[in-house]
């Protein structure tokens, strides 16, 4: 699936007329490193008219879900014990850099894992911090000469996946559930990862009526590191009384990631009926 319009939109967004203030582009939004090369890279681009100071560091975290299906994420400095963290042996070059106006900068990510690193997948997060090189003084001094200057630093947190050896992934899908309220069908999709690597894929949910007509559909990209049970809200409008079915498919297609970065696995499917009285 291609989305040329999104890139045209991006180009328009980056055109000089649209650049009003400090900004930076970080690409890609996920980095995959193979044990054979032990390196990856990020590209930064400053489309603005002012230099941006950039810092690169590492942390650990992955998305999880709470009891209501809300997605949460906790960014940690290091991986907790028992988690396959790569944070301790990843380095960025350079770690600090000033990216001038309309300049690009490549950040190299180098891995120096332990020599006896077992086969497997190891995770980290790259934190790209960027702030303007000048401190704007926002306030107009009053008669007492008091001014306030605030700077904004934006940190973009993206994932790093380090892979060694032959890895597999898969998914078991527990029974899904659905509830209709306020023009929306809330669908819970409880997933447990199998295999030796995270499951990167897309969940698609659709609501159909008794005649098979689609009343609404929704999809979201997911990364299942261990267990993940998100709630998906499918907008359906007002449903007439009757029986409906929710169909869910989880597959490893991810158009936003480089080819082969999402490991293959058979799709998982489930469905559930509900009634609108």
């Amino acid at each position, binding site marked *: 699936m291609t989305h040329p319009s999104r890139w045209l*939109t991006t180009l328009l967004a980056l055109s000089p007329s649209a650049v009003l203030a400090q900004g930076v582009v970080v690409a890609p939004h996920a980095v995959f490193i193979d044990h054979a090369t032990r390196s990856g890279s990020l590209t930064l681009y400053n489309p603005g008219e002012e230099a941006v100071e950039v810092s690169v560091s590492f942390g650990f975290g992955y998305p999880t879900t709470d009891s209501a299906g809300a997605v949460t994420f906790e960014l940690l400095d290091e991986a907790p014990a028992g988690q396959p963290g790569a944070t301790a042996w990843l380095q960025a070059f350079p770690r600090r850099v000033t990216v001038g106006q309309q300049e690009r900068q490549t950040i190299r990510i180098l891995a120096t894992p332990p020599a006896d690193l077992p086969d497997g997948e190891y995770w980290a997060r790259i934190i790209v911090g960027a702030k303007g090189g000048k401190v704007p003084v926002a306030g107009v001094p009053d008669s007492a000469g008091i001014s306030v200057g605030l700077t904004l630093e934006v940190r973009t947190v993206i994932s790093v996946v380090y892979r060694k050896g032959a890895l597999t992934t898969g998914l078991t899908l527990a029974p899904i559930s659905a509830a209709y309220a306020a023009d929306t069908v809330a669908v819970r999709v409880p997933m447990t990862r199998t295999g030796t690597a995270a499951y990167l894929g897309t969940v698609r949910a659709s609501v159909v009526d008794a005649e098979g007509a689609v009343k609404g559909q929704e999809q979201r990209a997911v990364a299942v590191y261990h267990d993940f049970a998100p709630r998906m809200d499918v907008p359906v409008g007002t449903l007439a009384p009757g029986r409906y079915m929710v169909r869910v498919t989880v597959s490893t297609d991810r158009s936003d990631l480089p080819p082969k970065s999402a490991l293959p696995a058979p799709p998982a499917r489930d469905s559930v009926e509900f009634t609108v009285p």
Partner: protein
Amino acid sequence: MRRLLLALCVLLAPATALAQGLSINGSITALVVGTPITFLNLQILDFAAVTRGVPKTVAQNTAAAGKVRVAGEPNAFTQIRFTLPTQLPNIQAVPGINMPISFAANSARWRRTNDAAGGGTIFNPAVGVNNARFGNAANPYFFVYLGGTVNPSLTQAPGIYQGTIILTITYL
């Protein structure tokens, strides 16, 4: 393939190409897949004139609020977190001369797709948001707005009071 070529144009083409329109010459040296994450700091949180002894509040739905536009993968979910200062040091005075700054539970807002003074979801900047989402392919953006309050004392020393607000965007 068009998608990849256009991605290259964004990241690898000379800056002048962006200014003059799109043209592709020469060989491809790298491929980038997936929409880059872009942020633009469109407006700093602007307290304007601050008077001794008078708290000054900027609401998140006013022109003086801080405003950031974040672009990324259409429809993707992200987390928003703020790291906020509680004191603004006077950079023209000896250390220890500060002005308090605070952020109420309703002083932040995020809005999918479009920039507008209304709509969106108000949130507590000290807590953040776990389900922010980029707009669809036509407008793959969300906007983050931030207000706040500075509270100068009656004897506040003159000078420039400076601080840093950190906005963290995490791809989920």
